């Protein structure tokens, strides 16, 4: 993704943001062999733009492995991004300025712009702002981890766990510390009698309360909740969620709520960002995203959520498994699994191969070699012409065939395939405040209808 396209896709919020992300990337090198040569990168987070409005809750949803936890860790400063910028405390105007100036080469800026950019980077950008500011950001941004069992040091007493931030940042100790820790414990529904106990003496819900008390010790403005309830019993989940809602109202907190459970986020979040394979594919107000998703992936997530209110429409389903994040699909990253994928969604040679392997393993076995000239053009070689014909007829009528530059050509025992190149999908504003990276939604303005021809038994529309 180029800087130009990403700057145009940054969504901003019309209030102050506690944190704004610009094209943030976390790529882990994959090393192989005795020499540890880098052979590729796992793109855990791959170009994320996000603004989190002060005092609101942003829900970050996606399946496991989509990079949502890594993104949370980047924002909390636990993982250094390998690309992009993180800004703290930007006003609505500053977000627009950042958005605009990021697309401009520094040499081409006017003197005024250059000064503005300098001020912004010195005052608000993580990594280039002063140590004092970094420290302030650290204090302001706290985390509640998913696993309450492993997020509390088993060798420390509750007093030392909850009191630790106060010791580090305010040099509190002794009776003063005890008093403050008891206050914090009471705030999360525990009490003075819990002060001198070890974590193993508590239940899961109580541990999560201790974790929350620790996060609140420094009076932060912003708390990252990394699946805070997913390890808890359902009845306890509700208690913790209510506690979080109460604390937010009381202390004016901003939450980034990371979860794979849409049901939880539906009641907690003001806005929702849906993540797939390292990228945000949809962003918008929670109610609207739930009522009318603008990305097939959000739609699938919503429909797969079990509900007590009768049968949900289960026609929207993904096929296959999550692709390899080292070489994510071209175009829209969802297209190999998408129920409404069309010709323009970014099909390439890899898709032909994996589709054939999945749908017609017998034909896949007849493939001898594949000569790729690039990701979009290749010659596939077979033992004999019959096998090559079988391969082509298998592709007939599929969406893959439609997206080819020209129909697959049989030449002797080999087949030439050639696809149209498609640029990577990026988040674009579809309606006011609603963003989607679905290429088809961007064309039509609404989510495409389910493709009837791909349905085995089209029950839709009843």
């Amino acid at each position: 993704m180029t800087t130009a396209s990403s700057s145009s896709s940054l969504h901003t919020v019309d209030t102050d943001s506690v944190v704004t992300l610009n094209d943030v990337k976390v790529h882990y090198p994959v090393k192989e062999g005795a020499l540890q040569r880098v052979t590729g990168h796992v793109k855990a987070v791959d170009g994320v733009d996000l603004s989190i409005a002060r005092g609101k809750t942003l829900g970050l949803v996606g399946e496991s492995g989509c990079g949502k936890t890594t993104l949370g860790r980047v924002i909390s400063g636990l993982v250094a991004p390998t690309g992009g910028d993180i800004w703290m405390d930007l006003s609505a105007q500053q977000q627009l300025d950042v958005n605009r100036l990021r697309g401009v080469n520094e040499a081409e800026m006017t003197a005024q712009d250059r000064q503005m950019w300098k001020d912004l980077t010195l005052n608000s950008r993580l990594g280039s702002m002063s140590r004092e500011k970094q420290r302030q950001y650290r204090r302001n941004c706290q985390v509640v981890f998913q696993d309450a069992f492993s997020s509390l040091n088993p060798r420390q007493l509750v007093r030392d766990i909850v009191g630790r931030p106060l010791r580090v940042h305010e040099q509190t100790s002794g009776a003063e510390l005890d008093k403050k820790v008891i206050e914090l414990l009471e705030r999360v529904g525990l009490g003075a009698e819990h002060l001198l106990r070890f974590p193993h003496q508590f239940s899961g819900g109580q541990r999560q309360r201790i974790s929350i008390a620790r996060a609140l010790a420094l009076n932060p403005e912003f708390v990252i909740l990394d699946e805070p309830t997913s390890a808890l019993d359902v009845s306890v989940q509700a208690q913790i969620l209510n506690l979080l809602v109460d604390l937010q109202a009381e202390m004016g907190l901003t939450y980034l709520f990371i979860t794979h459970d849409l049901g939880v986020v539906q009641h907690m979040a003001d806005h929702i960002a849906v993540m797939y394979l390292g990228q945000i594919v949809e962003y918008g107000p929670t109610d609207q995203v739930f009522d009318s998703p603008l990305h097939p992936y959000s739609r699938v997530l919503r429909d797969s959520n079990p509900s007590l209110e009768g049968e949900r429409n289960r026609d929207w389903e993904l096929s296959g498994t999550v692709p390899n994040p080292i070489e994510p699909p071209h175009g829209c990253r969802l297209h190999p699994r998408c129920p409404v994928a069309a010709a323009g969604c970014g099909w390439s040679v890899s898709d032909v191969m994996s589709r054939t392997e999945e749908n017609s393993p017998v034909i896949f076995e007849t493939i001898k070699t594949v000569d790729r000239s690039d990701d979009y053009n290749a010659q596939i070689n077979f033992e004999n012409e019959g096998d090559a014909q079988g391969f082509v007829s298998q592709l007939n009528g599929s969406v893959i065939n439609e997206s080819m530059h020209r129909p697959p050509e049989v030449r002797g025992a080999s087949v030439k395939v050639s696809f149209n190149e498609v640029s990577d999908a990026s988040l674009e504003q579809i309606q006011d405040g609603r963003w989607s990276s679905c290429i088809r939604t961007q064309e039509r303005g609404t989510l495409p209808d389910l493709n009837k021809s791909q349905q085995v038994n089209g029950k839709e529309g009843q």
Partner: protein
Amino acid sequence: MTTGPGSKKTAQSPTPKKSAVTVKWARRLEVGREVLRNPLTVIGLTIIFLFLMMAVFAPLLAEPNQPDPYQSPRDWSNIDSPPGVAGHVLGTDSTGGDVLYGIIWGSRLSLQLSVTVVLFTLVFGTMVGSIAAMRGGRIDNLLMRIVDVFLSIPELIFALAIAAVLGPSFSNIILALAAVFWVKYARIIRGEIIKVKQADYVAAARVVGDSSWNIYRKDVLPNAATPLIVQATLDMGNVVLIGATLSFIGLAQAGLTEWGALVSAGQSGLLAGEWWVSTFAGLAIVLWALAFNLVGDGLRDVLDPKTEGR
């Protein structure tokens, strides 16, 4: 961790006046009680206790020989006499040295050997392993390759080579053993720290903004140290075993009241039926090593139940 009945008691009857220190000691006592529940551990501890008493009260048990108490007094009129003859409870060796005296004063040397070697290797190995694990990357690679070199040579042969180069003396045996034993600790602590570093409580401490030294001190080391304690206990016995081997081969001073040297001195008499010198000295070595192994295994079962029966 273990939750014995003691922990439930602390959980259910909180007395508001309790201090953090008492709570922490109560927890340690509880672990101690758990350890003492294993009869084999108790046997091991008893043997160790008796040896300790023997070492501490050596001057009362056997009048020290002048000028060097670590040389057995010679009774030239009673050479190779069996146990019970002329006041020699465990007999004498071929130079008239009293075997009981050798074992009593030898316990001091064994204790000295164990404590010095284990303390030094524990501290040094932990330092090397911690630096490797906390820094990672190139430093880790470099340090671990050095450790691999040490590990690739059998420890007995390596200690033998070092002691042989340095010349025969008891302090050189200590040096040789120290040079061999530290690598194990470096390996163990490195592996444990890498595991512990993944825990969310370490991430939580980083989010809070605590220094790396504090994180190491409060979060990483206390949670990674358990296998070290077990290994150190086992090595208290192992060190004496290998040390005895070295002095058996003759790498300690001649006539030293060291158990291994004593076994070596009695070796020539074995075929002639003079069994007592090597047997009693050998028994002391076996008991010492056995006792620490019993305690080490007992500690492992309580502190680290996951590796039980390894």
